[in-house]
């Protein structure tokens, strides 16, 4: 299956050709070139998926294929960075997700970005991003993943800062890059630690569950924790940075300064789930060797999901609502991974139910990518028409934008978990898995699911119902290049739930048959419906005073949530007040005044010293004669009385 290499190469060609020659291309040519290349990529990805999943594995277990692997750089005998392609269920699934969403975004942008300055640059960056993301998911070793991880970060930086003349966009791109970079540092340290003990970067070896590999780390502790736990926790911090887990989530809401299709592609569907993917990729290591870290991940993720859901309830910028919703949903995926166990293959060739969480997480990743991309693109269509991100500038748009309305509704229903839309199925599995792990966690997650339904429909009603805002230009439906991806994704969202996902992706590779847990499903659906009803009551009419009263009732909580619990301010404080004021500036001062001062002091002393000796060099013969005399006598004395 060497042709999978072209899944990487085609977007790269797109990046290079558009990036180097881009300015020569007139009009939308660059967009068409990029889209064509991406379409080819997507087709290749589908062929790969079809070929991979249609090949039966040994004993029904899906194999891990490595069609290509080149040694790129050798560190030591054991440690070397390879660049290769690894195909297993999750990477193939990710390839499909990435290429699909990316293709949709490419098509959508033809309309959305039309006439923007830097159109070809935009497509070049999209190509770069798609290349790096695909490279990330097919990584054969942890270092290759780190390489593409960084590339993804950079393309995200470039795309967030696409409107580079806008100071907010520049600040947001910088923030995104630095925060993720900060997390990546931990990732790198984690890799270093892990490779120090295991002497390998290779995923195949790491995930084989081989005890010997980790033997050298056994018993080694650092600050009360096993070294291995530290390593895996550090790697998770890297994942948390990319996946915007609390407290490293702060960059994601700001990242919405980028063009909306970019938010759809990078900050909703693909890049932000890289962290989930990383944890899933290393799942055997987490599960077998550091289960405490895995549980920690679950708690962090659950907290993040709750936090983000609460914040999402009070935001007024529609893209921010979606951003917090994304954070919350990624929280769901990571919770599912955190509570999951490793399934065992039973006699009938099927996987036992311990692996449910893993499967659910991947399933949710898949469905979420589709409906969240759809939501963002819908939001993009609205922003494109309304020229504003604020909810208050919208209202009653269902008449002007029927297609956007319907597709948006589909996505909202999906994320709220209403059957038969895809979100229902994946979310239900997650809830089941959490109930299996700890019932109180299940309850919490159900509550968050209810919040999700509430804030999504708050958004929905505020945009499409309620009182229309005044606009000085006529509102119209988006062009077909933008609506067609919406329709396509809506269709996927409707049918994706019926895919027997467990047959394709599971923790062991054996097929997993999904059973709906009716108790959980029913409760969650009812709670979601209740939330939607509340949202309808509060926001449908548009002029209701109730929301303000509710806000008043919650008082400080409301204000805090509106300010995202002041996390940004804390960061601002740490970076500006502590790092800049208390470290960098004193250091710079120290350098200029102390170290340099010492040097200048030495120079000064030398100067003074020579001044002090200058009287000797009067130019008067007589003084020299005196010195000569003294010198001669001294030498004579030394010679005589030595």
């Amino acid at each position, binding site marked *: 299956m060497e042709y999978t290499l072209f899944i990487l190469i085609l977007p790269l060609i797109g990046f290079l050709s558009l990036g180097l020659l881009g300015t020569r291309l007139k009009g939308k040519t660059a967009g068409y070139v990029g889209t064509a290349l991406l379409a080819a990529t997507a087709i290749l990805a589908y062929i790969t998926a079809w070929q991979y999943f249609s090949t039966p594995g040994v004993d029904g277990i899906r194999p891990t294929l490595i069609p290509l692997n080149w040694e790129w750089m050798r560190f030591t005998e054991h440690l070397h960075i390879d660049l290769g392609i690894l195909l297993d269920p999750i990477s193939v699934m990710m390839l499909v997700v990435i290429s699909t969403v990316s293709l949709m975004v490419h098509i959508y942008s033809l309309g959305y970005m039309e006439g923007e300055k830097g159109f070809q640059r935009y497509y070049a960056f999209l190509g770069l991003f798609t290349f790096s993301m695909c490279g990330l998911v097919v990584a054969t070793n942890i270092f290759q993943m780190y390489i593409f991880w960084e590339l993804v970060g950079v393309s995200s930086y470039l795309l967030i800062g696409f409107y580079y003349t806008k100071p907010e966009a520049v600040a947001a791109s910088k923030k995104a890059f630095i925060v993720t970079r900060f997390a990546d540092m931990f990732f790198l340290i984690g890799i270093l630690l892990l490779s120090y003990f295991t002497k390998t970067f290779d995923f195949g070896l790491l995930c084989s569950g081989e005890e010997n590999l980790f033997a050298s780390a056994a018993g080694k502790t650092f600050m009360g924790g096993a070294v291995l736990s530290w390593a895996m926790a550090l790697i998770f911090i890297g994942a948390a940075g990319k996946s915007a887990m609390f407290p490293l989530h702060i960059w994601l809401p700001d990242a919405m300064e980028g063009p909306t299709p970019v938010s759809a592609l990078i900050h909703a569907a693909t890049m932000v789930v890289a962290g989930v993917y990383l944890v899933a990729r290393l799942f055997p290591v987490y599960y077998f060797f550091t289960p405490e870290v895995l549980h920690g991940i679950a708690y962090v993720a659950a907290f993040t999901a709750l936090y983000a859901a609460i914040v999402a309830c009070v935001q007024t910028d529609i893209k921010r609502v979606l951003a917090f919703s994304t954070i919350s949903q990624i929280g769901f995926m990571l919770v599912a991974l955190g509570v999951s166990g490793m399934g065992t293959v039973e006699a009938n060739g099927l996987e036992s139910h311990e692996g449910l969480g893993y499967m659910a997480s991947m399933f949710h990743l898949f469905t979420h990518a589709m409906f969240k991309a759809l939501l963002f693109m819908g939001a993009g269509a609205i922003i494109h028409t309304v020229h504003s991100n604020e909810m208050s500038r919208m209202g009653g748009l269902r008449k002007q934008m029927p297609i956007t309305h319907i597709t948006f509704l589909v996505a909202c229903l999906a994320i709220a978990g209403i059957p038969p839309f895809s979100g229902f199925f994946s979310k239900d599995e997650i809830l089941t898995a959490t109930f299996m792990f700890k019932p109180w966690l299940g309850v919490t997650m159900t509550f968050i699911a209810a919040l999700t339904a509430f804030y999504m429909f708050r958004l929905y009603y505020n945009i499409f119902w309620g009182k229309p805002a005044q606009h000085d230009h006529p509102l119209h439906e988006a062009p077909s290049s933008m609506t067609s991806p919406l329709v396509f994704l809506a269709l996927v969202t409707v049918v994706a739930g019926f895919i027997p996902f467990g047959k394709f992706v599971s923790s062991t590779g054996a097929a997993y048959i999904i059973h709906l847990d009716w108790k959980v499903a029913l409760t969650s659906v009812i709670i979601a419906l209740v939330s939607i009803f509340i949202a309808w009551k509060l926001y449908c009419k548009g002029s209701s005073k109730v929301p303000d009263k509710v806000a008043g009732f919650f008082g400080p909580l409301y204000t805090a949530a509106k300010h995202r619990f002041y996390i940004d301010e804390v960061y601002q404080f740490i970076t500006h007040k502590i790092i800049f004021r208390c470290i960098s500036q004193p250091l710079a001062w120290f350098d200029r005044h102390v170290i340099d001062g010492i040097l200048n002091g030495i120079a000064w002393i030398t100067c003074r010293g020579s001044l002090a000796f200058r009287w000797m060099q009067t*130019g008067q013969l007589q003084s020299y*004669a005196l010195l000569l*005399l003294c010198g001669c006598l001294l030498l004579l004395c030394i010679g005589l009385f030595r």
Partner: protein
Amino acid sequence: MELIPMEYYLVVSSIMFFAGIYGFITRKNLIAVLISVELVLTSTDINFAVFNRFLFPGHLEGMFFTLFSIGISAAETAVAIAIIINIYRNIKNVEVRNLKKLKD
């Protein structure tokens, strides 16, 4: 001549020599400096003569050296005095510390 040991002559000449040096270092008037130089030269002359007489009685080198030395010092004095007079003509002064003015 044995009744006066050679050392006595040498001591006398060294007193003269250091007196000359002292004068050379401390005097401010150029002519006085020149006088001091004269003392130094003469003291060496004495030494030449004395060494010749006491240590190498059969030879004449010391004596001739002294002879030439006297001649040279006379020449030197003549030139030096010419210069001093010239300086005086320029700055109306022959003090050492005023010689800086010559640079201007």
